[in-house]
């Protein structure tokens, strides 16, 4: 095995697989894929030492499009799959990708616990405030009055889930927001997220052209965060609560203990068996 994990000659396109994406034309997820491959190239990561893990949804198709190891799992369970892999193989760079439904609805409990477990993972949530793959239902981040879904014809009537606020409350050590329409900014955030030791949460506003065409407006609404990244959770909470949800950049980063099993074998099974002898 190549332990150094450094392959100097690869360019971003070398990290693309030859599987054709199923995404609709204009989908924000294309830009995320491109930022992922650029970040991997920038970090000079050997392809075989990277594992891309996902659940189910349009966004979760991403691992197949990256030429690295990958696992396309089941809806909502990307974080546990990634956590098990990282616990067993701390030598790998493990990146998790999915949607807002996958991560915050069916996978909500795993999100909370991945934040507090603080394993060295990068979690990219492509947030389009809609369920893309099942054709346009409300997601946890959908505004309460969005009435275009056949399942919620009067809107959800519920306050949307605030991913950054919840990540902070649950103990995440790196919280950032990027935008699919800002590929350079997104690539930079991804590089920082991957380099961050611990659980890095990156919310990516990734417009859905098909079910939320009004999200084309996002390019006019996003703006750089006017707060320098803080390591103070109180300051970060105040900022996140006042934020319009469109501020881009690194919002919070803090060095916290990273969960990692560190076990050297000091016994054999035969040693263990002795405890049963009469």
């Amino acid at each position, binding site marked *: 095995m190549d332990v150094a994990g450094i392959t100097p000659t690869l360019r971003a396109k070398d990290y693309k697989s030859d599987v054709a994406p199923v995404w609709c034309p204009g989908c924000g997820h294309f830009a995320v894929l491109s930022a992922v491959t650029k970040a991997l190239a920038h970090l000079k990561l050997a*392809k075989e030492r990277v594992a891309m893990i996902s659940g189910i949804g349009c966004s979760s198709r991403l691992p197949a499009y990256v030429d690295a190891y990958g696992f396309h799992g089941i809806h909502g369970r990307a974080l546990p799959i990634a956590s*098990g892999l990282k616990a*067993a193989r701390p030598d790998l760079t493990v990146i998790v990708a999915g949607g807002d439904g996958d991560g915050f609805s069916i996978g909500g409990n795993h999100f909370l616990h991945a934040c507090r477990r603080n394993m060295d993972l990068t979690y990219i949530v492509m947030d389009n405030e809609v369920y893309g793959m099942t054709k346009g239902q409300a997601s946890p981040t959908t505004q309460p009055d969005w009435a275009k879904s056949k399942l919620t014809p009067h809107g959800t009537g519920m306050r949307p889930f605030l991913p950054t606020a919840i990540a902070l409350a649950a103990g995440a050590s790196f919280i950032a927001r990027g935008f699919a329409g800002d590929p350079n900014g997104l690539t930079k955030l991804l590089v920082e997220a991957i380099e961050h030791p611990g659980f890095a949460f990156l919310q990516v506003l990734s417009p859905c052209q098909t079910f939320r065409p009004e999200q084309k407006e996002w390019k006019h609404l996003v703006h750089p965060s006017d707060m320098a990244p803080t390591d103070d959770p109180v300051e970060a909470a105040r900022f996140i609560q006042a934020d319009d949800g469109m501020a881009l950049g690194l919002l919070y980063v803090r060095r916290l203990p990273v969960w990692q099993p560190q076990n050297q074998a000091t016994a054999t*099974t035969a040693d263990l068996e002795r405890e049963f002898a009469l």
Partner: protein
Amino acid sequence: MTERSTLAGGATLAITGSGGSGAVTAGLILLAAVGRAGYYGLLGRSAGPQIRGGESAAMLRFGTQPIECMGDCFDLLVGLDWENVARFADELPLDRNSLILTDAQAEPIPEILLRSGAQVRSLPWKALADAQTEGRVNMVALGMVGAMLGLPLDALEAGARATLGGKSARVLSHSLDCVRSGYAAADASSVPSSASAPAVARWNISGNEAAGLGAVRGGVRFVAAYPITPASEVLEWLAPRLELLGGSLLQAEDELASINMIIGSSFGGVPSLTATSGPGLSLMVEGLGLAVASETPVVVVNVQRGGPSTGIPTKSEQSDLNIALHGLHGDAPHLVLAALGIRDCVDTVEWAVGLAEHLQTVAIVLSDQMLGQSRAIIDPPGDRPFGAGQRPHLQRLIAQEADPDHRRYRPTPDGVSPMALPGLAGGMYTGEGLEHGPGGAPSSRAIDHAEQLEKRLRKLTGFDYGPGWAEIRGEGDHLLLTWGSSAGPVFEAAQRLRDAGIPTRAIALRLLAPLQREALLEAIGSAGSILVVEQNQTAQCFAYLHSQRALPTHARSFARPGPLPLRPAEIMRALTERHERQET
């Protein structure tokens, strides 16, 4: 034909008491002591749902042959006190040959126990305990009962030392004083003689510990799990020991996480396992389908308890067979195994790990509360389970070098494709739960679906599992067919029927899926009467065997739900009733 234990030089006793009376501690010491005296033994326990301070009973049977079930009836009932014993009465069958031991100062023995006609003897436990510093009734009673059973004092003392090892030196020395005082005061006139010390060192192990040991022997080095009764002890045993072996255990946020975590770790190349019980298995079912589809080896030890829903968490049943066999959606071939006894938990789990790894699939191992939470004195298990030693050791087929043509799910003659592990350059692929082509890319084409379905089925059905699929004992025209932990009472029933001149064979299935149908039909042969025995309400195994066309039409079912343990006598009655009816 007798309905009592026929074990020479052994006995069956129950020790009951309210929470804190030390009934279970006394039972654990007695088990350790009979082991040291050269006997085999089995210690079951029963508890109510209280976390602390409820009622509890320890049930011990010992003898000169390996003990595989609790028998029919207790020779001795040691009542440390009689509070709440009514809740247990139906688990404590007594008859006119039984003896109830009680403290002379205790409250009267409940009528429900006296109705059995058992003899009663009142003994001065409390008085003896009061004469000791920090005297404890359970220890005095233990000493006295040990003497009455003919156990040497030093075996009892060694048992106490081993069991109370975690206590302070003061507690231990006071306890030993009590044991000695009870021993000295015993009227030990009718003692059976003690067995002689065994040639091979025996083990004192619980079923849950045995399952944990089987896992690590099979190579498991990562476990993720969520606590649940009665599976938690598997995890408690594993957590510190996996670390010693260089592995780890991760407590997950729920069972959805734990099954998916072990899929992730196994994808990374580390043999992985989780342990759970009914409700947890229900939550894992979707993840199991993912492991089947993505051909990621994982093992689930399901320690069954009474169901459905949260059912009876502290008591045993064999009613998760249906979900283990049929719970997964789609056509999802996987392995289902069941341990046949405490010692067999080591072998069956070790075998399951090897099979899951070798066949890159899911193995569900069914244990149950009775196996998991009982302890036994056993002969140590052998080197490799079920003749697997003659074959290459069961392990995962790992792609060793970069192969430009590496296609993860490429069909091979035996259906098993080499698996590239992350880190191998040139082996990159995406593990996939969606149907996929041979390279792993998602596909909804009929041809890919047919090819992958066929591959995943063929690798399981075409494999030669060797002789481990069942344990077969005895000869005869009458056949008792069973699975899992019911094997213990079934083997004893068959033995006693043979002793009574009714030639009876017993077959206990260890590998339930894929069912070894040809081998089973051959083993059944032309048996005249066939009774399928299991501990559940709806005859789940019986129905399954019929659905697989693996049973002659004249086979009958004896299925009874838990939590009362199956007794050899009721199995014998069920078989012979039928037998007599056939003859008239």
